[in-house]
């Protein structure tokens, strides 16, 4: 059964540096780093100690508030460093990998297992970390039962990894994962696929598929939730990234936590953008420098897409949820009369001497310049053009800024995640940090309401 979801509001940002559809094995990284900050709102309680040996799938730390929620090592090896920040905050756990990998055997899951057994299995193996929840866009709360589970099988973000390509051949794992997930909710597993796409997800059992079309954010899971079954007060939905279904599926089929992932290396600073097979936590330097990124180039390395990814240092690591590394030029230069001259080489939704409307198919080479300074909110109506959710974007942003919990709740805060505000942030004339505002708003609600 499949239904159609067509959105009109949005914006496709076409950039130079799309990945060519070939997969290479990345150079095997010597060290792997897991950063607790990837799991927003989790306070880590360390199990691992410096110098100890761990197997792939062995617990590194757990959630201080719920010991059952474990976070595991992607590889087997020796823990060589616990990186700490201010107030002894744990910044990263660095593992030097063994030459030959050994895995913790978590055992296969009985096909007729009930929800409690499934939960326990996912928790023990570290796969729980892949299940996130809304409200708040954090790792799912074990005690809740979601009203439905949502998966986006269509990536519409700029330069996103093509899920049809990266999921190909993994039908067995995907099926195993969605079957198990469907037992955790009464509301079913809802999956979006591209309308023209040939997705491996489309033919799976135990799910409801939706054919989505239209500009970005048509592929965001937040858009799918909003159009299918928006979150009301007191309700929870779960979301899982499509590529993480493979890891969950493999665990269910083999009993091993295999953190292998296909990652797209993209962006205008990459000479040969393509796909790599690598492992969560790998050093990004293992992929980028052999493929035409200049060692001393002035580039921005992003784990994730250019709209909501994380800025990395050159010695940084692939984060827990990303299946894309984007590299674009830094824009730390002045531009003479940049605010009033006609602009042909940047994207704009206006036509105020900006000419991207004339060539909708052109691919742009954008850098990290803000193209202007931070200002108070002034213009109106621009966000609505790129925001397909049934929510007033400016009003909810302002409610977050003045921290009015009642208003945030009334305007739909339970339904949103920061990434839903990536496009409004992109087009914002006042250069306001929308995603940060929403993240802080969600954190406040999580703290005050829970």
């Amino acid at each position, binding site marked *: 059964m499949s239904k159609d979801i067509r959105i009109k509001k949005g914006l496709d940002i076409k*950039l130079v540096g799309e990945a060519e559809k070939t997969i290479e094995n990345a150079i095997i990284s010597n060290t792997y780093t897991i950063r607790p900050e990837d799991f927003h709102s989790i306070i880590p309680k360390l199990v691992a100690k410096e110098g100890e040996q761990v197997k792939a799938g062995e617990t590194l730390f757990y959630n201080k508030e719920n010991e059952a929620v474990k976070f595991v090592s992607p590889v087997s090896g020796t823990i060589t460093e616990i990186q700490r920040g201010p107030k002894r905050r744990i910044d990263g756990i660095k593992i030097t990998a063994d030459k030959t990998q050994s895995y913790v055997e978590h055992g296969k899951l009985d096909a007729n297992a009930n929800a409690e057994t499934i939960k326990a299995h996912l928790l023990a193996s570290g796969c729980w970390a892949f299940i996130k929840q809304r409200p708040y866009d954090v790792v799912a709360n074990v005690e809740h039962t979601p009203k439905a589970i949502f998966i986006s099988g269509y990536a519409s973000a*700029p330069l996103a990894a093509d899920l049809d390509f990266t999921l190909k051949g993994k039908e067995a794992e995907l099926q195993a994962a969605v079957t198990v997930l469907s037992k955790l909710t009464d509301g079913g597993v809802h999956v979006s696929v591209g309308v023209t796409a040939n997705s491996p997800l489309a033919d799976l059992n135990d799910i409801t598929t939706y054919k989505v079309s239209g500009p970005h954010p048509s592929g965001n899971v937040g858009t799918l939730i909003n159009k299918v079954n*928006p979150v*009301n007060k*007191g309700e929870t939905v779960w979301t899982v990234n499509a590529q993480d279904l493979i890891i969950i599926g493999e665990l269910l089929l083999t009993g091993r936590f295999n953190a292998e992932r296909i990652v797209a290396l993209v962006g205008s600073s990459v000479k040969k953008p393509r796909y790599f097979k690598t492992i969560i936590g790998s050093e990004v330097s293992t992929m980028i420098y052999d493929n035409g990124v200049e060692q001393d180039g002035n580039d*921005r390395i992003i784990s994730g897409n*250019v*709209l909501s990814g*994380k*800025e990395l240092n050159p010695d940084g690591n692939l984060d827990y949820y990303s299946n894309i590394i*984007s590299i674009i030029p830094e*824009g*730390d*230069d*002045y*531009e*003479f*009369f*940049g*605010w*009033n001259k006609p*602009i042909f080489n*940047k994207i*704009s*939704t*206006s*036509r*105020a*001497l900006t000419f*991207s409307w004339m060539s909708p198919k052109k691919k742009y080479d954008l850098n*990290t*310049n*803000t*193209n*202007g*300074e931070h*200002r*108070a*909110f*002034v*213009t*109106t*109506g*621009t966000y*609505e053009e790129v925001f397909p959710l*049934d929510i*007033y974007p400016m*009003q909810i942003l302002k409610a977050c800024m003045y921290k009015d919990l009642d208003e945030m709740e*009334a*305007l*739909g805060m339970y339904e949103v995640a920061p990434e839903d505000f990536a496009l409004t*942030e*992109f*087009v*914002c*004339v*006042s250069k306001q*940090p929308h*995603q*940060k505002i929403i993240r802080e708003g969600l954190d406040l609600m999580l703290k005050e309401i829970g």
Partner: protein
Amino acid sequence: MGLKSNLHNLKEKYKGTKMAPAFNAIHTFLYLPNEITHNGTHIKAADDLKRTMNTVIMALIPCLIFGMYNAGYQHHIALGEITTKANGFLGASFWTIDNLVVGLWKVLPLVIVSYGVGLAIEFLFAVIKKHEVEEGYLVTGMLVPLIVPIDTPLWMLAVAVVFGVVIGKEVFGGTGMNILNPALTIRAFLFFAYPTWMSGDKVWVHGAVERANQIAAGENVDAISGETILGSLAQNNGVLGYDWMDMFFGIIPGSIGETSTFLILIGALFLIFAKIGSWRIMLSSVIGALVMGLIFNGVVSSGWITESSKFYGLMSTEFWHHLLIGGFAFGTVFMATDPVTASQTNKGKWIYGFLVGFISIMIRVFNPAYPEGVMLAILLMNVFAPTIDHYVVQGNVKKRMKRLKAKTA
């Protein structure tokens, strides 16, 4: 490049000092800053607030230039120095150097005073409050000279600008926070503080006031009439011999930039095309004005008021002429659409715009002291815009509550 790196070094030098906002304002005027994104979106669209404001100014420039020629033309024709009336937009006696010289002489000082005083206050507040100089005044500063009578004394304008920027904007927190349109606040201040300079039949043509004073002093010269069409209509004196083409092209007395509906229309189309001005507000405001105009026409044709009524002149004006005379077109396109003070929701914009148009014509007809309503209508609706938005947003909130109820029921 020398200039670029020198300015960069200066910027670093001023960083953290009190002068930083003032320096940055000038620096960013020359160069788009070297600021980069950090978290959130790593790329940003090309537009910033400066570009947005600049687009509005570009749309205003034709009105400004036309206003200068028209100031000269009205002056010369009143003195009898031009004997052949300019017929149509390209009239030979209109686009003359003589006309432009008078216009430049009278209008440029207004522009300079408006920008000089206004920007000085903006810089002062930016330095005191340690924030960057915001661009809002770039448009306000251009609007102000276009909506005042030609002979407005410069000191009066300066006082009004100080009042408008400080009370109308800065006390609320600056650009983006104000409730009332700053340019209209400035004009309203002038209107209530110096009414004799803002209305009547003397102020709309350069030289008329001076002549009146000379006559009062006993000199033997002819008086100049500087009456506007609205002023005449309000006294049931007809349209002073202007036809609708004169009104449309704007070869009539009035505030400096408001007369040419033709050029305002071009500006409106430009702003709508550039996606800077709200077509919803402009269109709904025109609809509102036409509806009110039709109602008044209906009242006249059904015989409820007679020619002896003091409202007869304006009420019997053909409904669509209301769009061409007075400041309606200018107000609708450039002032009602100010995004900060207008309604901010798309649905709200329809309601807000309609009421601006509707009330403009209502006040225009019924205001005994001053036969124009667009300024007061916009200011009034500025005050009500947040209320309109509130109810529009509540619609969305109620939908959410209903969904929740349906679930739990």
